[in-house]
């Protein structure tokens, strides 16, 4: 069916009220889909994540032969639009995403395209899910907003998260191995670049240098991703998939080759090396005393960099803090872990009441058969994150092990209980505090986020158990900015004081003055490079304090614990 036919069918069917025999009844408008022959002509619109992730994902779509555009970054106008056209009482992510989409579509109207043409040429790509929170219902609100704004025939293509690799390719996109690996790589790299960006920027000596370098690096990765999907198949127009009957070798062999090429190929390694060198060229001043703020919370709220979280990233940096962002990877591995954990719970419960040993064994075997691929996928993700992280200098933070997070959270939040971030927020707060990786855990969430509110409810007990944990939960609703910032400043004052105390303690321990240390560092440029690995210190969180101790040791002639960037040693790792 052509796009035109689709549109015609839809226009006939799109009236939400149909007459039944006697009474008029509401009918859900039919979901439009993307016919296979439209794939190379339709433009896929997506967004709503962090701009880095959106940007790199766009490259993957383009590499697969799709036309693609990302949604405009959220702003006040977007929020207003979203609130106007979506259901009342929804949470922010819906308003921002739907608003961005509507702003984009209105932009197309302004450019002179008519509504029919827009509906024919563009489709919106989103994730569909189910679970105890509202996330899975967002799709309905996007459709409602589109309908209310006069784009009733605009097609929404859901990617069913629970279907995993078994998507209905006849009604949407074609998800080949190149596409899958491309997205995989894009998410991994965007996470690592984001972590590094916020790790380096507060210390940059030349204002704006970090932003410039990171934009350059992302462009490099973008070009690589765009290229790597297309050139192998020779046809950049058609979406590619693993051929069911490959010309040479078996299907598995073909997969293996693709995995190796995407994740370990020489051209990819070369691009990463270039990026690392570029980032390492940024000059930093590590003596700046900055408290480290770990951002956690609801996925959208801590990923977005704009009004969706009161511009918290820039506000924190402006207030003199170093931001420690949370990667999407931790959520992805959490989803894998959770599936596995649910299976384990099920198996344990059923085995407990299994009448015979045979049934008991059968249940255990069934669980392991389901759990193994999930375990493998989680391990593979963590492995590749670590691999790329090392390739990019090794100073970016590691992904936490999901089992550790669940174990730490378990006394407070049942690890099998689903919904939003579930036990993640609790687990991360404890994990990063115990690891001495941050002074303050700032949990960002949209106003009225149901699972996150429950998580806050148990955080009080967590704070009693771990008095060293400094935690602030902030609901972002698009209004109340002044008070929100004031609350952050309140918590930050504590964190800043702790950071300053640490630096004073570090100086006392070294017995040297700051000037003395500065002079030493001035004469050695490698200490001012962005990816210079500073070893962890068990009692110190503040990067400046760690650096002071490290430099002092160097001045004493102690060469243990560190090397220059790119070396095989990783002193900045956690044990």
């Amino acid at each position: 069916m052509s796009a035109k036919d689709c549109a015609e069918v839809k226009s006939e069917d799109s009236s939400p009220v149909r007459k039944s025999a006697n009474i008029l009844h509401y009918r859900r408008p039919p979901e439009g889909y993307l016919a296979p022959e439209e794939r190379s002509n339709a433009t896929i619109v997506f967004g709503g994540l962090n701009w880095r992730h959106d940007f790199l994902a766009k490259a993957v779509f383009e590499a697969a032969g799709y036309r693609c555009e990302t949604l405009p970054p959220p702003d006040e106008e977007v929020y207003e639009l979203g609130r106007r056209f979506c259901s009342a009482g929804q949470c922010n992510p819906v308003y921002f995403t739907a608003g961005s989409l509507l702003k984009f579509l209105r932009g197309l109207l302004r450019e002179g395209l008519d509504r029919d043409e827009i509906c024919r040429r563009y489709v919106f790509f989103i994730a569909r899910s189910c679970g105890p929170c509202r996330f899975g219902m967002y799709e309905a609100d996007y459709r409602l907003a589109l309908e209310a704004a006069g784009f009733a025939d605009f097609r929404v293509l859901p990617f069913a998260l629970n279907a995993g690799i078994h998507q209905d390719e006849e009604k949407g996109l074609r998800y080949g191995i190149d596409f899958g690996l491309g997205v995989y790589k894009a998410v991994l790299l965007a996470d690592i670049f984001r972590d590094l960006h916020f790790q380096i920027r507060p210390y940059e000596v030349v204002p704006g240098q970090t932003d410039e370098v990171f934009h350059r690096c992302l462009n490099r990765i973008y070009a690589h991703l765009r290229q790597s999907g297309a050139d192998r198949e020779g046809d950049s127009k058609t979406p590619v998939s693993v051929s069911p009957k490959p010309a040479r070798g078996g299907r598995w062999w073909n997969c293996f080759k693709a995995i190796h090429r995407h994740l370990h190929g020489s051209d990819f390694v070369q691009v990463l090396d270039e990026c690392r060198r570029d980032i390492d060229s940024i000059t930093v001043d590590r003596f700046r005393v900055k408290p480290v703020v770990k951002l956690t919370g609801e996925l959208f709220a801590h990923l977005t960099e704009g009004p969706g979280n009161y511009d918290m990233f820039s506000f924190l940096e402006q207030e003199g803090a170093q931001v420690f962002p949370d990667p999407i990877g931790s959520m992805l591995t959490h989803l894998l872990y959770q599936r596995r954990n649910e299976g384990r719970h099920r198996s344990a419960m059923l085995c407990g009441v299994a009448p015979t040993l045979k049934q008991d064994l059968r249940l255990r075997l069934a669980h392991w058969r389901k759990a193994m691929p999930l375990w493998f996928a989680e391990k593979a993700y963590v492995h590749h994150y670590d691999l790329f992280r090392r390739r990019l200098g090794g100073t970016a933070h590691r992904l936490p092990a999901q089992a550790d997070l669940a174990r730490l959270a378990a006394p407070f939040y049942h690890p099998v209980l689903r919904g939003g971030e579930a036990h993640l927020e609790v687990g991360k707060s404890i994990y990063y505090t115990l690891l001495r990786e941050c002074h303050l855990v700032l949990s960002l969430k949209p106003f009225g986020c149901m699972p996150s509110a429950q998580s806050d409810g148990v955080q009080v007990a967590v704070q009693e158990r771990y008095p060293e944990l400094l935690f602030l939960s902030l609901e972002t609703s698009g209004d109340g900015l002044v008070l929100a910032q004031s609350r952050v400043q309140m918590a930050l004052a504590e964190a800043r004081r702790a950071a300053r105390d640490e630096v004073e303690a570090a100086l006392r321990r070294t017995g040297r003055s700051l000037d003395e240390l500065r002079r030493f560092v001035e004469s050695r440029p490698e200490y001012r490079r962005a990816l210079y690995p500073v070893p962890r210190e068990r009692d110190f969180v503040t990067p400046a304090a760690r650096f002071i101790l490290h430099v002092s040791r160097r001045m004493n002639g102690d060469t243990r614990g560190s090397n220059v960037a790119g070396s095989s040693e990783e002193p900045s790792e956690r044990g």
Partner: protein
Amino acid sequence: MTASRFVLGVDVGSTTVKAVLWDCEHALICWKDYRRHGANQRGRLREMLVGLEQEPGISPKNCRIFLTGSGASEIAPLVGGRYVQEVHAVALQVERSHQGVRSVVELGGQDAKIILFRQSPKTARTRKISHMNDKCAGGTGAVIDRITAKLGLDPEFVRTVRYQGRSLHPVAGKCGVFAETDITNLRNRGVPPEELVASLFDALVLQNLTVLARGNTLFPDVLLLGGPHFFFPGLVEAWRAHLPRLWRERGEEVPEDEIDRRIYAPPDAQYFGALGAVAYGLEEAAEEGWYRGWRSLDEAGNQLRSVTKCREGLPGPAASPQDLRAFLEAYRPPSWEPSEWPEGRLISGFLGIDGGSTSTKAVVISEHGKLLAKAYRLSRGNPLQDLIEVLKEIRGDFLRRQVELRLLGVGTTGYLKDLFRDLLQADVALVETVAHAKAALRFQRQVDVIVDVGGQDIKLVVLREGHVKDFMLNSQCSAGNGFYLQATSEGFGYPVEKYAEVAFRAEAMPNFGYGCAVFLQADIVNFQRQGWRPEEILAGLAYVLPKNVWLYVARIPHLPSLGTRFVLQGGTHRNLAAVKAQVDYIREQFRGSGVEPQITVHPHCGEAGAVGAALEAARLWRSGRESRFIGLDRAVEIRFNARCDEQTRCFYCTNRCVRTFLDVEVPGTEVRRLITASCEKGAAESVEDLRRVKARLDSVKAANPNLAETAAREVWKPQHPLRVADEPRRWSFRPWVRRRSELIRRRGNFRVGIPRVLNFYQYAPFFSAYLQSLGVRPENIVFSDYTSSRLYREGAQRGVIDPCYPAKVALAHVHNLLVVKHRRKRLDCIFFPLITKIPCWVADSSGEDACCTVAATPQTVRAAMTREVDVFEQEGVVYLAPLLDLADRALLAGEMFEAWEAMLGLTPEENDRAMEQAWAAQERFEGGLRRRGKEVLEMLEREGRIGILILGRPYHQDPGVHHGLFDRLQELGYPILTPGSLPLDPDVLERLFADDLREGVVGDPLEIGDVWVNAYSTNSSQKIWAAKFAARHPLLVAVDVSSFNCGHDAAIARVCEAVVEASGRPLFAFRDLDENRPTGTFQIRLETIDYFLKEFGQGREKGLRKPCLESQEKLLSSRAG
């Protein structure tokens, strides 16, 4: 750099500027000052600095400056100072000067902060826990200011009011605006000002304890800081009354005579921020914070102003003088002149009276609906006196013109409508929504939406073909009301009548974010700081009004869906700036749709309600009703005596409400007593009266079954399962067998506490039967008391988060089990499972998830009860919160076994047998309810009556959650059904869903795929299916109930609405059920529903609803067949 001679600490707050000057040479405070800044922070600071430069002579060479407070961060760089976060500053000062203090409560103008100092046994460090109000400014000084101003009380008088020994009345502390409503109502009921102020202090303290403290205990010593504590000793007394009770409960004993010493407001309470800033400055390096002089403050301020306006502002209300002229020509209200008649002429007319919360209005209209006279009076605290005054004004008006007025009928409306009707023997008391609709339709034939913005209330009435289709009222929040514009305008020194004139002068205006009215105040301060002028701020505020009305209160973002013809009414629309804002907003919403909305302002917008009441009186007169009105001459001579005290308290139910007794003497008649009470029983004066009222209610209830109430009662009844427990062995060698036998024997005395909340409203039979079948005695399965405001108040103070009320109240139920039930007779365990999945009867649901808030609540309860001290451990009770999947019977068996094995000594076989009994009991309960539902439907069909289907979740059956709403509907004469009581019998389903099945829209009557695809939440799916049921049953009207903050209901609200409304009936909604019962708005909604349903019933009888009738006939004939 040398050390400075002075360190200046400045606290720039939301309403005041406080400063202290530290003389470093003599180590003392040599100067301090406290001034209200009247929203001009920079100006006030400038004055202070100019004075300080003269005496004692601070200068950039000898002074460093440190600033704190909500307004300091932007001002600090302008004077060269350093910004110190205010909580940090206060904490520093407390640590310096009051070392024994463990809790600090600082109430500011608009913010409230709590700082707790906790000594960590682990790290030996003092940890500071601080909380600040984030969503609402209820409980702050602003509430006292507003209410004092509203009541017209002298601030000096408020200072002298003591808390101790006063009678206290319930005041909603949750929202400052609603506290105001309660206080106004209490005043109208004759409560003396001292008691009002004491009640307000009480509400503020409770608000801060329940919301701001977030479950923390404010251990002694407690330091009370900030202006309100300094100025109002009564507020400090309120803290002294509440905190010791809390300490006792949480094991902190403080002797009675020490309380005053342990909770106190220091003499310099208002300077703590500024003193903290000095303390911070003294700790800072000598080069930090050098004062740069006040001139930079001025220069930078000007620069900031121009930059901000260009970047962030909006263009002013008038795009051009022509635009403004055109608007004024179109919308300036026509001047109204009373008609002229020859002397001595007899004029016939109808009187309409609107007794509102803030004003009383009266109008006289002619037989043809022409307005003959009107009177308006702002409430002065005594509504009856206000009524008499407006009637005097009307009477005087006609006397002056020397014409005789003959009133043929009298109608009343407004929240005092019933009282006025009884008093004057008026012909009708008309619900406000309908009165406004009638008034609008009198002046404009075709109306789709009436926007009525009054002083306190916002009413939106949606009409279809001249009938009220839907209406919205602000019940949980009053943001967007007109009083706020008036208060702000007066704050700037302009009377409200000048508002529009001033606002239209603005060429640019700040862009306010809409939301809580009190945060708008914070924004005003912020904008003033940025240099916006009063006229610009007034213009900006007028423009935020429609956003607040449509988006924040009514939550209708897409206006074209309501219609195209809008009528603006209510006193606020006398303000042309507000009208222009509304007109611009509505037009903007239609831009690009190709439709031009038609917006008109009612010519008597302030009196529209009274006009509607008079029109209804005229209609009744035309239909032959003889008026029994006592006459104007007698009405203005009414004498009355109002009483509202302990003597008037009602003892007919456990609520023990205080009523108002009005002894009224109409000339020529005996003294009559009118009673104002919150329920019908309260209106009875004697036991005989009560019996009569009760008998009437009982007969109404018998004729109209309420299955929500039935379910809420029967779900807790003991079940009758077979006993499947193993017999204990008398003796065994094996210790584990002996141990198990002992546990089995113990089951008879084993006592389990279960909170009467959430999913237990559906699954209590299952759990009761499970435990009973294992040998636990029915009387040992102890449920907490039913939800009540008292239970919530007593038990929710440990609450940390603010989810929906049904979840929030769970903590209070567990508290009730521990503090009341357990102390009465020991409980062994409290069972509160985390229910993750619930079986769903919808055929095509893609999942069976329970709501995540509901599922996780047991663990937040545990966290709250174990944070400071493990209360369960202390009381020797096990808190059992296992994870349960009710949708998977096999898995559930394993989970129940795991949960109870150790406690009851279970074996898997025994567990399986108990599970069978539990499911059988559950099926019996659900089947019984559905059977009754079928009987009710049959009754409706037999008698041709209308029933109400409540679209809610099982826990909405909790009478404390629905606040008696369902009972009120039942008392109005409608049988009540719930989704859980709808029959699923094939014969019923086939009749209702036959068309859908024939057309192939669904394959099963229990599918919802034709209307909703994301069906993974059980309760949401079931609610949507119930909406489909209501849409297909001709005798059912759906009422959608959901709790404030409910995420799942927010997502499906539009679907339910679409499903029901497509069938030609409105969906009535109560979507903001919360902890406080908004009696007034509930009443208006209920009366409007009743009015609509009566009209609907009449329309059905006349054949106006043909499709419905046809369908009904078909239904009945198929039944007969």
